[in-house]
């Protein structure tokens, strides 16, 4: 019993991280239709900045927001200066994000060196809550809460606000949306910034959860992409469900079949692609 409760809880808290990561990527894909290889770089920079800001200010929440905003600003600049220049050509945009990802990887190595960092966060992150005989670490509870709140806010934004309707319109048909007089270029820039913001949040939370080190940007990318593909490319709710499924599968996979646990990432994707090529919540 304790095993199942603990593993489920761990799986859900891991899913929270996956949602922050994949949610941003799916938003960016939905509106911009690009393969954003630099998404892992947003995570990496977010994590390193979070560690630095926390060391400087001692305030975790300040570090979280400050770092995520900085990453978002970086994303906006990236979109304006580089991606805009090659708009409409999938391969060129992909090559650009790859170049940027390599640049960021090497730059981070130059600035922060090869040693791993960990963000300790406020003292109560190390404590845990006891409930009905089970213990729940506060850091993990915080991760779940942060992902949950962000999902609800983003869902409300996308489904209930005017700007969200514009985003949905741009996901379905950017050309037609533009013809209706909506400023799609600005929309794309904003969504790219928002996606980068979410990845930055994931980076800060992730560095408190499992540390941050060179190469992590490419290591977490498989998870981000599989969340997006399983959920349905461009669907926020899809990313949420896919993150939950993959977080739980990954956690139980690691606990029960450590040897082939990576199949828990590949297998769900293969199954979804075989039976529902557009993903769980995707629309063709």
């Amino acid at each position, binding site marked *: 019993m304790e095993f199942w409760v603990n593993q489920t809880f761990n799986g859900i808290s891991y899913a929270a991280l996956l949602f922050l990561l994949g949610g941003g990527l799916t938003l960016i894909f939905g509106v911009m239709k690009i393969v954003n*290889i630099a998404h892992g770089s947003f995570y990496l920079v977010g994590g390193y900045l979070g560690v630095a800001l926390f060391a400087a200010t001692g305030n975790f929440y300040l570090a979280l927001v400050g770092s995520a905003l900085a990453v978002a600003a970086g994303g906006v600049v990236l979109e304006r200066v*580089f991606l805009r220049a*090659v708009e409409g050509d999938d*391969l060129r945009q992909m090559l650009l994000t790859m170049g940027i990802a390599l640049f960021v990887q*090497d730059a981070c190595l130059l600035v922060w060196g090869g040693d791993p960092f960990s963000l300790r966060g406020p003292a109560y992150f190390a404590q845990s809550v006891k409930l009905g005989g089970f213990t729940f670490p506060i850091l993990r509870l915080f991760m779940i809460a942060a992902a949950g709140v962000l999902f609800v806010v983003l869902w409300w934004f996308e489904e209930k606000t005017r700007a969200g309707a514009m985003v949905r319109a741009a996901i379905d048909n950017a050309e037609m949306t533009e013809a209706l007089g909506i400023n799609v270029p600005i929309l794309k820039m904003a969504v790219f910034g928002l996606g980068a913001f979410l990845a930055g949040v994931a980076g800060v939370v992730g560095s408190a959860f499992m540390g941050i080190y060179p190469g992590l940007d490419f290591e977490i990318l498989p998870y981000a*992409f599989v969340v997006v593909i399983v959920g349905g490319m461009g669907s926020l709710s899809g990313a949420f469900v896919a993150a939950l499924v993959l977080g739980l599968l990954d956690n139980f996979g690691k606990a029960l079949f450590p040897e082939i*646990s990576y199949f828990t990432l590949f297998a769900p994707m293969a199954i979804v692609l075989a039976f529902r090529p557009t993903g769980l919540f995707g629309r063709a």
Partner: protein
Amino acid sequence: MDVAATRAPMRLVTGLAVALAILAGLAPVLPSYVVILMTEGLIYAIAAASLDLLLGFAGLPSLGHSAFFAVGAYTTAILVTRHQASFGAALAASVALAAIVSAAIALLVLRATGIYFMMITLAVALCAWGLAYRWVSLTGGDTGIVGIPRPRVPWVGLASGTLSFYYTVLALFVGCLALYLLLIWSPFGKTLVGIRDSESRMRVLGYNVFLHKAVALVIAGAFAGLAGSLYAYYNGFVGPSTVDLAHSMQFVLMVIVGGPGTLVGPLIGAFAITFLEKMVSVFTERWVMVLAAAYVVTALWAPRGMLGLLRAAR
């Protein structure tokens, strides 16, 4: 058929023959580290040209080509180190397994097109990296598989010397190149180009688009498996880095730097990137920065590659 169209293949074959003669003739007088680099360039050229069949000719922008390269490399590494397989057997098994895996992957990825196809093939390559990394009992995990000896080639004996291994790879390269040329000049190759240019038109004309794409993926996967097998012999070591993101993208970069859809371009691209890496590494530790710049410059200013630039300059 007009005169220019019949003359172009002749010029191409003459050009390639001259280039191959130079590659074969120069090797004995060059320093051995250059010959080693040329061997690596040839291996990558086989892989890059096979990706060009997909990316340039069939219009299938696969970002997961390293997965099949890795299947070939790991198959050879495992068979040679654990089962003492011969060169021919390891090569054949690598090609066959890579073809089988790419047939299975083709069924999964071919329902998607364009940007969706790119996303999914990239995810497949990323998962392949994860498997190489975590499936420790099969792949050796992070430490990989070490100590792959140079192959024993029929009529040559042990190709342990730099030159004999180089000529072995060169011979296989010539064979691959001949097959590539036959393929792109065949009705099958012309059909792929037709599908690239307009899928709906080819479908209306009665072509089985799905089957053509699937066969193209299998053929390209088999050639990538062959290149991977040679890479295992060349490198003596196979690890997760064979299939990591940087390696996957490097094939795409080689194709585009040279010129997609030209076959010759990717060969040049493979040599250019291979030599660039080694030369830059002599002067600076920041090879990754230079590589990053290569991606950005290619994306911004040379999307049709060097051959595209040449054509535009004319």
